[in-house]
């Protein structure tokens, strides 16, 4: 009997479903992450006066910095369950493609971070009395592409950091420099839409390019990272 093939999408989907199920079961992690996100917004509201005239211009930056912090805390948990019982060894000895694991983890992180963002955005709107002066629909591609940019590299570097001495610190050390053009794009684009001063098209294209380049690079190199001893 010919063995059934472990197809990329089947494995990706199975892994993603498993991760979502496990995340849902241990709601502790989710709850504390949500609370952390809330705290970050509150701290920002105290540190950067919402009533000041300049606030509208910096809120784009504040929002994305807050997202960045929340994302890093979430990303650090990416491989935590797999490391506990050396589950990655089971993955390594199986015929399942490494890219499937990477995609599943990235998509899972994307969903998780998006949930956090969905909580933080209304809080920012409330604290900073935000109204959007530019085309609001553009915030959606900015948010989606920007979040994916953070998550795709974050998942990759989290895997790289797995065998380093200070794993949780290594992730932001590797992620932040590489993310600078994406952060610039997200922040400038969001500010452009909020203030209505400039068109945000270029930033959307920039983020799209960034996402394509680094998703390709991560998919190409993940197998090497997974099998690193």
């Amino acid at each position, binding site marked *: 009997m010919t063995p059934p093939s472990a197809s990329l999408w089947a494995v990706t989907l199975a892994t993603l479903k498993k991760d979502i199920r496990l995340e849902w079961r241990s709601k502790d992690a989710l709850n504390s992450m949500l609370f952390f996100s809330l705290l970050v917004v509150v701290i920002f509201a105290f540190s950067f006066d919402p009533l000041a005239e300049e606030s509208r211009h910096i809120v784009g930056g504040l929002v994305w910095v807050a997202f960045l912090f929340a994302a890093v805390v979430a990303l650090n948990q990416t491989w935590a369950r797999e490391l506990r019982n050396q589950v990655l060894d089971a993955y390594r000895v199986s015929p399942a493609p490494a890219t499937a694991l990477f995609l599943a983890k990235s998509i899972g992180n994307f969903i998780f971070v998006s949930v956090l963002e969905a909580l933080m955005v209304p809080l920012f709107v409330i604290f900073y009395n935000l109204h959007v002066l530019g085309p609001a629909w553009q915030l959606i591609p900015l948010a989606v592409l920007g979040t994916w940019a953070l998550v795709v*590299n974050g998942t990759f570097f989290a895997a*790289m950091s797995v*065998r*380093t*001495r*200070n794993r949780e610190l*290594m992730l932001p*050390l*590797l992620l*932040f*420099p*590489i993310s*600078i*053009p*994406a952060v*610039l*794009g997200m922040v*400038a684009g969001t500010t*452009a839409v909020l203030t209505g001063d*400039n068109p945000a098209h*270029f*930033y959307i294209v*920039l983020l799209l*390019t*960034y996402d394509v*380049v*680094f998703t390709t*690079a991560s998919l190409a*190199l993940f197998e*090497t*990272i997974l*099998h*690193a*001893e």
Partner: protein
Amino acid sequence: MKRIFPILAALTAVFLAYATYRNLVLAPTDALQGDVYRIIYYHVPSAWTAFLLFFINFIASVQYLASAKPSRQAVAKWVVIAIGVVGVVATFLPQVQGQLKSIGMRPSAMTTTVIMIPLAYFLIGKWFSRERLDVLAVTSAEVGVVFCTIVLVTGPIWARPVWGIWWAPGDIRLTSTLVLWLIYVSYLLLRRFSSSAQTQMLAAALAVFGALDVPLVYFSIWFFRTQHPQPVIGGSGSMDPRMLQTLLISWLAFLCFALLVCWSRFRLELLKREVEELYALESLGSAAEVKASLPLQRSAR
């Protein structure tokens, strides 16, 4: 080999001294900036040297990753040739030339850069064995970070008295250099803190990510600047030919110095790895095997 090093060191010392003399004494004083501008003779050559070293690190990292599998190596070879051909042809097209000029780059500079990629790829691949590629990567990264630090320190020192500000966030060159510095510091940190057996591969992957990032950094800042005009540090435009000459001589001296430092670091790293290999082979327990299988033969280069 052992004799060349001291001779080169002496020559470099002389060269640096001469360059210093030219930088500080011979070169004419700038009409606008006065004598402060002389820092350019340290700022710019450091930048060019750092970029060259980081470029070498990138090529060595790609080679290292490619040499892991023969199929990958063939693919990489063709990609690099394609980049060279397409890039050179493109920079001769008028539309592309127009675009380049509008973002402040000279087409000839672009052509040279693009040709360097396959050239460097094949030369480095030829001269360095797989293990040595990684040693080259580490060396060029470390020395590159040092020169890059010089750029980032001299930049604000220059900017403050002349333009009144320490830092301009929209300045493409300075900001791109900062990001490059950050990427390579994180590269060195990864090498130091990773306890994986495949640290070298991981670092090479990070270097590739960094290289992919740099053009994106450049373009993101460039566009940001067109929407938010920023002060430009350093300015562009033509330079007095005597100044240009001094600048080039200073760069040459820096290159010699960089070569010396890299060479020392390279040999140091080779020695370190040789020692590790000897320990490792010793633990294997057979003296006869020790001599036969040392992949890093110091005497060979």
